[in-house]
């Protein structure tokens, strides 16, 4: 385990940024967000960024291929796929877990090369939480906010940041910073972890239990009458899906610039009425079906296809951002017998 005193943290950032693109969470008037480190910013202490960290590997829009139309010929232009190495600093346990959930979709056969490429070029430096919010419920899905995963795991105390490399990629990066960091034992980290775990137990959503849901429960939940009432308030916007770190649906569209056609993909939302629209029309014609889809996917379908792992990481963004405060916790309470 390595440590660096807080006052030298910016030196460390500068060092990383000199070799890779470094992204750190920065406070803005509109909440914390990841920004490319340019030597001027200081790291945010906010619990989490407004948008999730999935953008690094699965950006909202991404060009796939261009077609150049010249007279009556069409030339196909493959996109350039060389991404620079980059480092994400300060991802929380929930967001780090979301990468694993996305990996299971994008890296499974057929592999999504765009995602894979970004994933291989990115180093995730996670940050343990110390002050989780009332909307946090990562524990429900077995995530330990005090001990996140990641290539390097950090703990920030009052005066220092502690680093623990968990992967080869992480070890390599950490080693390159040895000149700035010093070796240390884990006493301070252990103390903080223990303290955080006490806090986690007292969170209002600490008792939220997902065990009623999980793999192979489709028939148990699909036709439950409660979907009708809880979906009533849903406006059908895409806020929950777009702030969600694990939502992975996208649409592929063509944009004709007049000179060429750009084929790109962009996030889509199962809450939208034209989601998965096909020649015959839509699959899910009412908002109740669309609403059910989203939560069934997180709580039942995803676990069914992924050894019981839930498709939610309990980051609480949807709770904070839903225009009408309808969210997965309310769904779990209503359908899963949670009180």
């Amino acid at each position: 385990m390595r440590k660096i005193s807080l006052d030298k943290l910016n030196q460390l950032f500068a060092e990383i940024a000199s070799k890779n693109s470094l992204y750190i969470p920065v406070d803005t008037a509109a909440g914390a967000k990841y920004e490319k480190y340019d030597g001027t910013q200081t790291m945010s202490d906010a619990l989490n960024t407004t948008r999730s960290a999935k953008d690094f590997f699965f950006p909202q829009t991404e060009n796939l291929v261009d077609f150049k139309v010249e007279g009556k010929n069409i030339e196909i232009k493959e996109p350039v796929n060389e991404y620079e190495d980059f480092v994400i600093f300060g991802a929380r346990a929930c967001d780090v877990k979301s990468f694993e959930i996305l990996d299971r979709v994008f890296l499974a056969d057929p592999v999504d090369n765009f995602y894979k490429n970004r994933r291989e070029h990115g180093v995730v430096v996670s940050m343990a939480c110390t002050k989780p919010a009332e909307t946090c419920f990562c524990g429900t899905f077995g995530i330990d906010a005090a001990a996140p995963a990641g290539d390097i795991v950090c703990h920030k105390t009052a005066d220092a940041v502690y680093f623990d490399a968990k992967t080869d990629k992480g070890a390599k990066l950490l080693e390159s910073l040895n000149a700035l960091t010093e070796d240390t034992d884990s006493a301070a980290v252990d103390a903080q972890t223990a303290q955080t775990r006490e806090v986690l137990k007292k969170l209002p959503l600490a008792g939220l239990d997902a065990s009623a849901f999980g793999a192979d429960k489709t028939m148990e939940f699909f036709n439950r009458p409660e979907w009708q009432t809880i979906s009533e308030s849903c406006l059908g916007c895409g806020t929950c899906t777009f702030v969600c770190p694990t939502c992975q649906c996208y649409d592929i569209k063509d944009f004709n610039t007049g000179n060429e056609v750009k084929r790109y993909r962009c996030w889509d939302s199962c809450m939208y009425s034209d989601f998965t629209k096909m020649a015959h029309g839509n699959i899910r014609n009412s908002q109740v079906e669309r609403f059910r889809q989203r939560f069934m996917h997180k709580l039942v379908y995803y676990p069914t296809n992924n050894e019981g792992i839930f498709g939610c990481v309990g980051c609480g963004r949807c709770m904070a951002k839903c225009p009408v405060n309808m969210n997965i916790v309310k769904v779990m309470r209503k359908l899963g017998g949670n009180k």
Partner: protein
Amino acid sequence: MQVNGEFKPLIVAFCCNWCSYAGADLAGNNRLNYPAEVKIIRVPCSCRVNPMFILRAFQRGADGVILCGCHPGDCHYTSGNYYTRRRMALLFSMLDYLGIEKERTRVEWVSAAEGAKFAATMNDFVEKVTALGENKRLEDLRCKK
């Protein structure tokens, strides 16, 4: 657009069929020159012009958009240009509010008898837009050549 190192603006002019398009024809009949950068699109009435068309033109690379219609009171459809006037007053004011250069958009009333006014208007508009340079604030980078 840069032509031989010189900036040549791209201007889209929407002209109503009854007055301004005829005014542009009259400019032609009288051989009154104006820059070839001006490309005219014929619409039945200035009120047919949707703000979306104007934004579309900027997106696709126009540097200026001008709307020409019958003089107020002379609309072939009696009141179309009155609506145009309100719509464009509000739209242009909004574009200005967003920091888009106000010289890039214009509404001008040109009658079928005003060939000279049409040419003069276009000359002036092209000059103003040329002075502004390329449209950077409402451009779509994907549409750049």
